[in-house]
């Protein structure tokens, strides 16, 4: 199998490690894992066969997913707000830290839609950068997938408090954008479970 897979997902390990794990799970595939939207935009134009990203990102770039991730039978996952000392209340927060999915405007809109409020959004490009926002009190709370809360808590002794959000967010999905795309999507669907788990997925459909 051959082809070029662009992965744009924020995970609890370094992009270098994600790229390496995915390459070992997809022999023959060139995997490029990035965490910055600008890098994603640039690489999207560079002979890519398939893209693995959140559906909200694929939609923003007018890409149609041909493969959807699922976990526990759902194609969406829960997000939470995490604050220090007390559980955040969306309507009362003035600032929230979030992973930069879609640049300033797009991420602001994503956050607003998700939490139903319009606080100032402090964007970061890596999962591990959410914690400094809380430590340095740059944000009242941070927004992240619930599955990543244990990873956040493992690195911190702050009194982290979690508040569920009602709306769900689509799990990672893959879109074919090049000649080898369909073949890559089939390979992703058969990817080892421990690697799929890194991106929050236990099944593909």
């Amino acid at each position, binding site marked *: 199998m051959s082809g070029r897979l662009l992965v744009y997902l924020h995970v609890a390990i370094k992009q270098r490690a994600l790229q390496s794990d995915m390459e070992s799970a997809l022999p023959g595939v060139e995997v490029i894992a990035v965490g910055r939207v600008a890098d994603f935009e640039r690489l999207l134009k560079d002979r890519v066969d398939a893209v693995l990203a959140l559906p909200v990102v694929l939609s923003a770039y007018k890409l149609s997913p041909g493969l959807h991730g699922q976990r526990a039978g759902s194609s969406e996952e829960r997000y939470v707000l995490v604050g220090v000392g007390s559980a955040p209340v969306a309507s009362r927060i003035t600032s929230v830290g979030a992973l930069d999915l879609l640049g300033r405007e797009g991420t602001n809109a994503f956050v607003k839609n998700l939490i139903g409020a319009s606080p100032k959004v402090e964007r970061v490009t*890596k999962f591990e950068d959410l914690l400094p926002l809380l430590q340095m009190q740059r944000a009242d709370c941070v927004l992240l997938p619930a599955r990543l809360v244990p990873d956040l808590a493992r690195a911190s002794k702050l009194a982290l408090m979690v508040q569920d959000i009602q709306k769900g967010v689509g799990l990672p999905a893959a879109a074919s954008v090049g000649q080898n795309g369909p073949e890559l999507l089939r390979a992703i669907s058969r990817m080892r479970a421990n690697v799929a788990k890194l991106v929050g997925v236990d099944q593909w459909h």
Partner: protein
Amino acid sequence: MALTRRIFLCTLPLCVGILSACSPSLHDSSSSDESRELFSITSAGPRAPTILVFMPDTTQTQQVLSGLRDELGKDYRLVALRVDASSPPSVIEGALKRYAPAGLVLMNNPTVSAYKAVQRSHPEMRFPPAVVVMTSFLETQAAELRGTTGISYEVPLITAMTNLRRLLALPSERVGVVGRAGLRAYIHRQIELCALEKIPVVTEEVSQRPNPSELKRAIRRLKQRVDVIWIMNDDKLLTPRLISEGWMPGLDERPWLPSIVGAASLVSARSNLGTFAVLPDHVALGSQAAGMLLDIADDDWQVPSGHGIDLPLSTTTTIDLAQTEERFTLKTDALQQVDRIVK
């Protein structure tokens, strides 16, 4: 594993180069603005406000520029001009007149010094808001600059320790630091931040210009009381002589403790100086600076009053794997949390 003095001295220029990443050595003070232009993006159109960047031309500053470009390039005319240690303040003065920027970004110590000189010589002039990056101990200089904010270049100890916590199994998390009295306030701020994460910090103060024996004694005393040594990016404590005759023998003595450094070049397979380096992610630093400028633009191009100096949010990490495996205990999957592994 031990680094011989000869090998070490060969590596010093690299170490010093990194420690002064913001001190370029290009010389062309007579250049015009056009020849100094490193980068210009005008896709936002001719009426878009201009953001002017004064910077030396180094790998690190180019990375910061790329973060700025990604965030600002679509909405602003972004122009980067080369300024170096030999550039007279008139270079900045001339560019301010020529480009009439809405906002500025200043990178590194010599650039900030030149900008200070321009502000001092024009006390009546209104300067555009400026964001300073890549400048050592910026907090101590900020009061001398008008309409300026910025991001400090030193990675806070709390960030370094949080990163280390993901990697090493430590008996406890007491950190020791050797510091000069001149940096007492800075160290105190680090102690306050670390307290949030319940990380005790123990300090050993040395004189303003310690000799290797004084430094070694301080390291020995610290080693009795802590689990990790933090080596600050203080150029007065990181002279070639102090590294080779103070830090290296001091750290090589038992008990072995992991050491955190602030420059990737201080983590080397040929030495046991740094176990783990944590330094700013320069592209992310550019994005963070761009975010500050966007906030300033939203505020009608005013630096919000009382806005202090921010801390860098994003870092990159390097680990000396051979030293770590020989002397310490890595946590399961720890290497998935590191950007660069030195073997």
